């Protein structure tokens, strides 16, 4: 019982340290969000402001932009910790590395996934989405962004020791995220046509559960390889 308390305490410590550090350098959090907003607003400028057309392609645009913004933010997940030795120290705590890695990914989602959710109503407005479609978009982002954070963390853990891991990270990460993209846009399309999309959401949720249970072990193993 006492061990469980210690483990939760360690989780909270890691999360609060991450948040504290991030708020000292707000640009790290704000830049990906700015990028997300700007990419989405470029589309109406480039393809014209026909509401029917925008409404049709909006979910795809928002999802792809969210994916690219997530890619931008991954680097900071382990890079600084790798450089300053924090990663080594996390491996030398009496707690399982996979557990501490969960805390890091959770903090990362709070700093990058959550803001995407928060600005999404604004973008829905830009792209003339109706409430029904927006609700579906929001739900898919809510379930999908944590999966992106977990998958991205595996990619970062594998590439953190490399000098120029950024491109490699995109090459690992983007193909892995295709299933999420497909199911999310399918759910949103179904919502746009007024059909039920609960089944598709359930599939996404199943992916999230699989990612939460399996990814931390993959991340921890990859980090051990990268550090040694």
């Amino acid at each position, binding site marked *: 019982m006492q061990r469980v308390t210690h483990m939760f305490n360690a989780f909270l410590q890691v999360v609060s340290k991450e948040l504290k*550090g991030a708020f000292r350098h707000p640009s790290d959090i704000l830049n990906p969000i700015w990028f997300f907003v700007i990419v989405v607003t470029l589309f109406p400028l480039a393809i014209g402001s026909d509401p029917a057309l925008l409404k049709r392609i909006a979910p795809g645009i928002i999802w792809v932009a969210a994916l690219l913004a997530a890619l931008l933010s991954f680097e900071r997940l382990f890079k600084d910790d790798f450089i300053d030795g924090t990663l080594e*120290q996390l491996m030398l705590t009496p707690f399982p590395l996979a557990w501490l890695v969960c805390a890091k990914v959770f903090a990362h989602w709070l700093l990058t996934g959550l803001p995407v959710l928060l600005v999404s109503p604004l973008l829905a407005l830009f792209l003339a989405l109706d409430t029904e479609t927006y609700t579906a978009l929001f739900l898919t982002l809510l379930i999908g962004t944590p999966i992106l954070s977990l998958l991205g963390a595996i990619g970062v853990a594998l590439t953190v020791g490399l000098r120029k891991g950024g491109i490699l990270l995109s090459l690992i990460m983007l193909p892995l995220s295709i299933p999420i993209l497909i199911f999310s846009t399918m759910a949103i399309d179904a919502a746009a046509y007024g059909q039920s999309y609960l089944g598709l959401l359930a599939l996404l949720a199943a992916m999230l559960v699989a990612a939460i249970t399996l990814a931390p072990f993959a991340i921890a193993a990859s980090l051990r390889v990268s550090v040694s």
Partner: protein
Amino acid sequence: MLHCKKLTCVHEDRIIFNDLSFTVAPGAIVQVEGANGAGKTSLFRLLVGLASPSAGAVFWQGKAISTVRDSFHQQLLYIGHKTAVKAELTALENLQFFQKMQVSHGELNLWDILAKVGLAGYEDITTSQLSAGQQRRVALARLWLNNCPLWVLDEPFAALDKLGIAVLERLFIKHAQAGGMVLLTTHQDLTIDCSLLSKIVLTDAAGNSYV
């Protein structure tokens, strides 16, 4: 008790050291010496379990460290070349994090500890604004706030001034006399009494020698 049995470390087809065996008993201060590139840091990374040896094994209290990882890490304090001090946090926040990540931590006054390492007045400044020596002191402040018997310190004196080194040497002696173990690398000559101190010399050639 830490025991190494026939450790071999190979880096990209180059043998760093070979068949290295030694034992560190409670109350010992062990200085690992060797030229640059002789494998001091590699040895320490094997000892703490950050890397695995190409051959041989490290034993803690008679058990291989890979099998008792959690309890070994509970009793180990490792400070490497990279100090794990977060540049965007203050000295106090860094120390608080280290304190709270330990399983058993007493109610130590962190302000007192920072004063002991000569950082009084710098507690609330982000460590990115401190000098290299002061950042090292933040990392070394961890020595005061734990009760781990085994200390593994890679170049603890790097960037420290003479006074800082003297304080640390006294702390090592106190720790060893209380039954702790200290392993360190340094190029400095230690002024520690010979009965406590022993040396391991890593030579450049494939062989190795001890004193």
